[in-house]
């Protein structure tokens, strides 16, 4: 099994990475590689592809779950369950709709909610066979997400803060309002402002 102990960087080691690339291009390349890796996993059921994904994503998924407030042992267990789901559901991954990071985020999120509630949050999945005629082809989601990553870094502190409290710490909008001592409406308007700034970076109004 030792050959599976791939470090997160392995996927990129094989790729040609001229040092003239900008950091944004490099991030896009990394992101594309992981989306390609997940697509290959779905096609080949190759455990070494799974091991690579695990090497990169499992430690990040665990960080995410720890931030939600779970103890280390539980976070470890939920991380492993989430990664098992990556294996089982890989064929449902569609890279025109999400990057590997986003898709794995949604699995980890649902797994965490299941654990915390001990009952299920209905997870939205578009059935594979269901056509989505209105879906505009936006190309690789990685392009969009790279722009967004840059955009998150430029958000004003108070908008970045509510985004982090919501997505990273799993706080409801009411809990955030209470924690920051501001009205619920202000939490929502900060989130809306953040989202509209991020949308501007998608290049088209979504």
């Amino acid at each position, binding site marked *: 099994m030792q050959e*599976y102990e791939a470090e997160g960087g392995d996927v990129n080691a094989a790729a040609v990475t001229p040092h003239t690339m900008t950091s944004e291009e490099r991030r896009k390349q990394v992101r594309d590689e992981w989306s390609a890796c997940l697509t290959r996993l779905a096609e080949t059921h190759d455990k070494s592809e799974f091991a690579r994904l695990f090497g990169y994503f499992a430690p990040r998924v665990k960080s995410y779950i720890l931030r939600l407030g779970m103890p280390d042992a539980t976070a470890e267990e939920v991380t492993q369950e989430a990664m*098992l789901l990556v294996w089982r559901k890989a064929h449902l991954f569609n890279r025109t709709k999400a990057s590997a990071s986003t898709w794995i985020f949604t699995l980890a*999120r649902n797994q965490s909610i299941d654990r915390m509630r001990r009952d299920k949050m209905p997870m*939205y999945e578009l059935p594979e066979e269901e056509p989505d005629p209105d879906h505009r082809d936006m190309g690789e989601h990685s392009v969009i997400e790279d722009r967004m990553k840059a955009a998150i870094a430029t958000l004003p502190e108070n908008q970045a803060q509510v985004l982090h409290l919501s997505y990273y710490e799993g706080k409801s909008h009411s809990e955030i309002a209470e924690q920051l001592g501001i009205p*619920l409406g202000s939490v929502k308007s900060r989130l809306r402002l953040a*989202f509209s700034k991020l949308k501007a970076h998608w290049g088209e109004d979504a």
Partner: protein
Amino acid sequence: MNISHHFDDATLMAYSAGTLPQGMALLVACHLHWCPHCRQRTEHTNAIGGVLLDNLAPSALSEDALNAVLSRLDEPGQEFAAAEPQGTRQQDDDLPAPLTGLLEQPLDQLPWRRIGYGVRQLDLELGGPGATRLLRISPGVSVPHHTHGGNELTLILRGSYNDELGRFCRGDVADLDGDVEHQPLVDTDEDCICLIATDAPLKFSGLMGRLVQPFIGL
């Protein structure tokens, strides 16, 4: 389906962040089933989570974590899962798939409970801080004026209603917070059936509302 009322951005962000109470998350999932526009918006609100995940510093896993997971890949039940069945009952054109799985009968055969003149309800009993229920309102009937302590999401499953905010038809959602006071009126000769999810109890205003509040328990 011609959908003209959608969720607030902040609601879809809460859905993506996984912080909505269960009933509200169910309602969002139901609207998404019907609404390509909001599905696409949700791809974007999910992507915020993906970007944040990428930005996180990795945490150490136990040494045997990968082997432990690899050893489970061949267990029965870990094979590539088919698209999961959308509920226990046959698909019902009336209902969005996430709700079909929760209801044991078609809308017309549910054990509706009368809670007032022209108003029937069915509590889905999902638990959590708010309530999740189906409301069935007869033509010409209006729900008493009310505001909301927290947030209220309504998805129209059948029929339509009119209120201060506009006309709401099948597939539309009303995404309301505590500042909004409204009085929906069913405006066709068909019952209006809605799925309603809250994260706090509603507050009725006016004498009629105060009288009816303990009774409806909305």
